[in-house]
């Protein structure tokens, strides 16, 4: 062996003695502190990190005093825990902040939803009020229409005999009031009366279909009576239309002697049979 190499080995041994290898515990402690100081602990838990640094310094001190002592290992062990604690503390603080953030977000979201629900409730309320107003208005209108119809019926009852039958409301006008004997032309007084009937029909039954029926007694030829009944019915219809009853909902029919309401053997009975009936169909009311 060459003297130079020998001296290198000797030097290495001496140097080795001066710088004893650190125990595994201290290596771990240094690594743990390194990791903690580079992690979130620097920001979140500086106090705990400082304690960890002090613990590491103490371990380093023990190592330089007595490298192989139990104390060096113990202090290193403790320093490792302190570094880990600083790290765990930082993670706990971050989790706490996450929680607070989520709770805040939850509160804001809930508030938004509440606001939304409130505005929906308000609009529903508003719509309901509107519907109620409409219903009330409709009720008023219906009541007014019913009142009008009742008033019209009362008006009619004053000028003509009004009966309610299965075929509808029947307004019966005596033939002698409307026409001269064997005539189909309305008497002037009859026009006035029919105008009142027309007004009542427009007022009380503006949508109903109306049939005007011309009835006669059984005296004379049947065909003549049929024609007379039809002509009289048409005269009445024309008068009603001229007063404003819609032409498309009113028609005339000649019934003649076919449907007497009284005995044709007496003059009184025949007078009752000579008549015009205005039938207001209830179906389209």
């Amino acid at each position, binding site marked *: 062996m060459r003297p130079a190499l020998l001296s290198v080995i000797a030097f290495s041994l001496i140097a080795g003695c001066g710088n004893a290898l650190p125990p595994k515990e201290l290596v771990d402690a240094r690594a743990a502190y390194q990791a903690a100081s580079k992690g979130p602990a620097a920001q979140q838990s500086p106090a705990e990190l400082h304690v960890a640094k002090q613990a590491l310094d103490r371990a380093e001190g023990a190592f330089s005093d007595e490298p192989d002592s139990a104390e060096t290992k113990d202090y290193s062990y403790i320093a490792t825990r302190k570094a880990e604690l600083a790290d765990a*503390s930082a993670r706990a603080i971050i989790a706490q902040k996450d929680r607070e953030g989520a*709770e805040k977000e939850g509160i804001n979201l809930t508030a938004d939803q509440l606001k939304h629900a409130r505005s929906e409730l308000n609009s529903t309320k508003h719509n309901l009020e509107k519907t109620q107003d409409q219903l009330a208005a409709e009720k008023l209108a219906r009541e007014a229409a019913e009142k009008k119809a009742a008033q019209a019926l009362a008006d009619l009852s004053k000028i003509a005999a009004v009966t309610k039958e299965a075929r509808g409301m029947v307004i019966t006008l005596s033939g002698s009031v409307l026409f001269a004997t064997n005539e189909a032309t309305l008497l002037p007084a009859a026009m006035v009366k029919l105008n009142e009937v027309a007004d009542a029909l427009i007022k009380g039954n503006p949508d109903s279909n109306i049939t005007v029926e011309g009835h006669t007694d059984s005296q004379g030829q049947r065909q003549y009576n049929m024609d007379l009944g039809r002509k009289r019915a048409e005269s009445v219809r024309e008068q009603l239309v001229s007063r404003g009853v819609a032409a498309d909902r009113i028609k005339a029919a000649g019934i003649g002697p076919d449907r007497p309401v009284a005995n044709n053997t007496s003059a009184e009975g025949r007078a009752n049979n000579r008549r015009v009936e205005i039938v207001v169909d209830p179906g389209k009311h």
Partner: protein
Amino acid sequence: MRKTLFITVILIASLLMACGSSVAPPSDRLSSAEAASRSAKELGANNDPKAQLHLKLATEQIDQAKKLMADGDNKRAELILQRANADAELSVMLAKEANAKTEADKAQQTVKKIKENK
């Protein structure tokens, strides 16, 4: 001669006493290590594997320290208790971390549910 013997006995006795009482029993350290262990347990350290490990280490070292104190080795017991304390305190913090994470998860789940309900 008798006097010399007496003095020697006194000297030896005082030396022995001095040795035995050179380090006082680390009762305070023991109490604080035990208190930290209890805290860790109450915080649910046994529900988290890492916290549980350090609680176990602390408990074992406390037992070890008690034996050392019974044998009169207060100096060694003192250091073992420092280790136990470090483990117990770490266990406390790990349990706190686990709890904080659970709470954060819960809060985030709630937010998710609220968003789904929208």
